[in-house]
């Protein structure tokens, strides 16, 4: 057994986290910053942080993940990291020449109390920031929230630093996609363009973290939201924020800074989530939904009706991030499946409340824990087995020990490709999720059926 010391008996723990279902803020900030065109994320801390974040993001995306660091030493930890950051800014613009440096802090620089805007203004005064170049920042103390919080904070920093008003309202809709895959961001753009809506999507990691092999490495790939586009977000007619935790703060900041009204929706994962997204788009932009989208929706429902018998009543355990889990649980419930164990490492009672609302009519008991870990998830599964696990790659240790199929979803996926190329949002994304779930459930049925009951047609 891989997790041979995990017992069935659940003991209360108040200090020890075992097998986390979250990681720290800075990595989320780094990922978000990569969604700005020609931006180099910068980690203000010791080298280990950026090295770990780059490694993890690279293992997930199988793409170059560029970022820089202030390389704190013991001295800078005592005297503050000002000299390091000023030097880093000078070097980055001289050697790598991005348009934007997006600084995020770490537990180290937060504990010291480094004042990033003050240091950046010092760098600017010393001439380290060339004309037309930007240094933005956000505070991402690793001991608060999770990687989700860091992503939300860096996305909000894009508003704080760039969004402005040009005096008139454009017929543009801002879309904040939340902590999703580059493929999801691409899919959202495809849907809005099918509807004929002009949008600004930020951050946008498509074409940054799912780029083509061209034989020529480009440190700053084609993708990413441009600074010019970010500046225009304050003139858009409205903002649709997907995901309360990851996109809410930026949307609200844009509202209070530039009076751009916002709708904060669940992520468009699954049927209902996508329906609400498309319908909201239709209403705010005053367009009709094109037939091509109706066809995609119809295909998704067709698959559900065709294969409903295999989904019905199946028990599922999920680990992941709150925004995704809310939409996924809603999706599973719509398929008449039973999400019975739901765990996130990200703290927040609101999440537990929301999941309880979504699952209140289910004919089964539902365990939901925020600020928990995968050790807990595993123990829950040992107490009440499930038919399917949905979660990141770390869940495969549970899946193998308990002999339960695993649908890889969320962050990080370290052992498979595809997630950055094929979406899980929208109707097409929903179809992909259905196909993946069905494959897992039916492969299991094929494996477990007796020779007598083995089916050709299913």
């Amino acid at each position, binding site marked *: 057994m*891989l997790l041979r*010391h995990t017992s069935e008996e659940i003991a209360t723990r*108040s*200090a*020890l*986290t*075992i*097998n*986390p279902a979250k*990681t*720290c803020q800075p*990595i989320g900030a780094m990922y978000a910053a990569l969604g700005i065109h020609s931006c180099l994320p910068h980690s203000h*801390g*010791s*080298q*280990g*942080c950026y*090295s*770990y*974040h*780059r*490694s993890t993001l*690279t*293992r997930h995306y*199988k793409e170059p*993940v560029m970022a*820089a*660091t202030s*390389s*704190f*030493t*013991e001295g*800078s*930890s005592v005297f503050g990291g000002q000299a*390091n*950051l000023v*030097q*880093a800014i*000078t*070097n*980055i613009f*001289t*050697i790598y020449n991005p348009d934007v440096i997006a600084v995020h802090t*770490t*537990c*180290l620089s*937060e*504990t*010291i109390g480094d004042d990033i805007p003050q240091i950046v203004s010092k760098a600017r005064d010393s001439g380290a920031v060339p004309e037309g170049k930007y240094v933005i920042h956000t505070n991402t*103390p690793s*001991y*608060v929230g999770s990687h989700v919080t860091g992503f939300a904070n860096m996305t909000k920093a894009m508003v704080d630093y760039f969004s402005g008003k040009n005096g008139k309202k454009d017929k543009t809709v801002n879309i904040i996609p939340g902590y999703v895959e580059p493929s999801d961001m691409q899919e959202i753009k495809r849907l809005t363009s099918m509807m004929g809506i002009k949008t600004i999507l930020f951050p946008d990691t498509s074409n940054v973290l799912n780029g083509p*092999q061209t*034989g*020529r*490495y480009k*440190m700053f790939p084609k993708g990413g939201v441009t600074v010019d586009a970010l500046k225009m977000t304050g003139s858009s007619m409205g903002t649709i924020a997907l995901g309360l935790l990851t996109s809410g703060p930026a949307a609200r900041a844009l509202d209070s800074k530039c009076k751009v009204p916002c709708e904060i929706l669940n992520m468009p994962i699954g049927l209902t989530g996508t329906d609400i997204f498309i319908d909201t788009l239709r209403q705010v932009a005053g367009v009709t939904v094109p037939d091509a989208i109706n066809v995609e929706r119809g295909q998704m429902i067709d698959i559900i009706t065709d294969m409903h018998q295999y989904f019905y009543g199946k028990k599922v355990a999920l680990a992941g991030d709150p925004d995704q889990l809310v939409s996924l649980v809603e999706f599973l419930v719509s398929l008449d499946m039973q999400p019975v164990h739901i765990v996130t*490492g990200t703290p927040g009672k609101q999440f537990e409340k929301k999941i309880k609302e979504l699952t209140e009519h289910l004919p089964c008991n539902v365990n939901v824990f925020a600020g928990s870990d995968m*050790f807990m998830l595993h123990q829950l599964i040992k107490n009440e087995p499930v038919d399917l696990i949905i979660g990141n790659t*770390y869940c495969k240790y549970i899946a193998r020990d308990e002999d339960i199929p695993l649908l890889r979803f969320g962050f990080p996926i370290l052992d498979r490709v595809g997630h950055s190329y094929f979406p899980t949002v929208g109707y097409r994304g929903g179809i992909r999720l259905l196909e993946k779930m069905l494959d897992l459930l039916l492969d299991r049925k094929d494996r477990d059926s007796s020779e007598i009951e083995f089916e050709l047609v299913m």
Partner: protein
Amino acid sequence: METVVDLSTDTEKVSPETFKKEILKQYPAKVARKRSKQIIINSVGEDKCTPEILANVRTVPGIISQRGCCYAGCKGVVLGPTRDIVNITHGPIGCGFYSWLTRRNQTDPDQSKDKHNFMTYCFSTDMQEEEIIFGGEKKLRLAIQEAYDLFKPKAIAIFSTCPVGLIGDDVHAVAREMKEKLGINVFGFSCEGYKGVSQSAGHHIANNGIFTHVIGKDDTIGEGDYRINLLGEYNIGGDAFEIERIFELCGITLVSTFSGNSSIDQFANAHTADVNLIMCHRSINYVAEMMEKKFGIPWIKVNFIGAESTAKSLRKIAQYYGEDALIDRVEKVIADELGAVEAVKNEVYARTQGKTAMLFVGGSRAHHYQDIFHEIGMKTLSAGYEFGHRDDYEGRKVLPSIKVDADSRNITELEVEQDEKRFRPRKSPEEMDALTKNGVLFSEYEGMMPEMENETLVIDDISHYETERLLELYKPDIFCAGIKEKYVVQKSGVPLKQLHSYDYGGPYAGFTGAINFYKEIDRMVNSKVWSYIKAPWEKNPVLSGGYAWE
């Protein structure tokens, strides 16, 4: 900023001097001055003397290096592969999360009686704001208690992350207290990420900790005529298993490995071995040095990467013991194993011969893997360590002349004395002299540079910019580094072999490993995929007249 000259059209003529000049001119003056001492054009003189290289110094902020931190070196590298210690990271969640199973250290818990294996688990105190403000010792104490209650391990180790040092949590005091209370071994490491200049500081701290708290605690003399320790082998992709297999064939007993496929019980007993064999000199030489002083165990540098290197290392061990039975048995094993190795080597040689490699990795692999490339006729154009010191480059002969700077001084050097009860010289001074004369060098590592050709580029702590320019100007057939560099290099159309994680392959050590590596490199440098990058319409974009169907 000067424009960079494009020399890529005539790569044959890019001399290392030109390369160096090109690189330095892109840098701000201060950076250029420092980097000029870290980019060295190799020349090997008499007595294997090479030019001096600047190493183990701070990375300049903003430069984009490959390096990680002290915590990564301590918790991730050295202690990571110990299966039966509950390793608790004291800090916010990230550090524990990122070092959870990501280094591919294989282990076989069924080899231990209790079958403990905690390597698949990540333990963290997940420090919150409250602990940063009011201190985290209380939570740490409780976390240790909870870990003990749940798992009943025989040892618990605590690893400090950056904020722990800043807020002044005394992890060692908590460890002592809990050791007393629980009656098991509990020990702490002050391996905060900001210490030192790279992972290297963490290796040293880990070595000190294991030496202080574990080695020498179990005096049982086990069975076996030839009892050795293998130091600095982390069992990535099963390397240690392959080496164990070969030792077994030779009749050599492995007392302990630091720390691949290890158990804390083996560490406790390691001081009973006859000799220490060092694979990764950088990460573990401290333990070897201290064990020699305290217990009288001599150490020899070995290399099990490459079939010839493996054979050479085995012969050294046999020579150390000097007994015909062992010498004959080792020769027989080598002869038996080399057959299969030669067959594969001969098969791939025609396809790999003359190809070029660059290696920028770690503190020993950039050196070791040059041997195996050489075996299949490949030439190393350039190499460097991520966190090596001058002795890893130039050899231990330069140790007396290494200036200890403030960053290194902060890492404690343990004062080690002879253990009156346990010190036992393994060989007489005369025997040691005789062996040395016959080529078994004790306490010696000759370094990477003396074995590299003249005019090759040796680059310490290579930056992203330098990597890009190397690829552009020299177009090597393969580049070896880590995950962060992997796709940068491959997007440039050059395959990258990860020498930290082995790209999830391996083993590459020993004889089986050599076969695996030959095949893998053949696959990589001859893969068809690179020839498809240009689409047909890009290769021949001109319309030659009319439409095809007209």
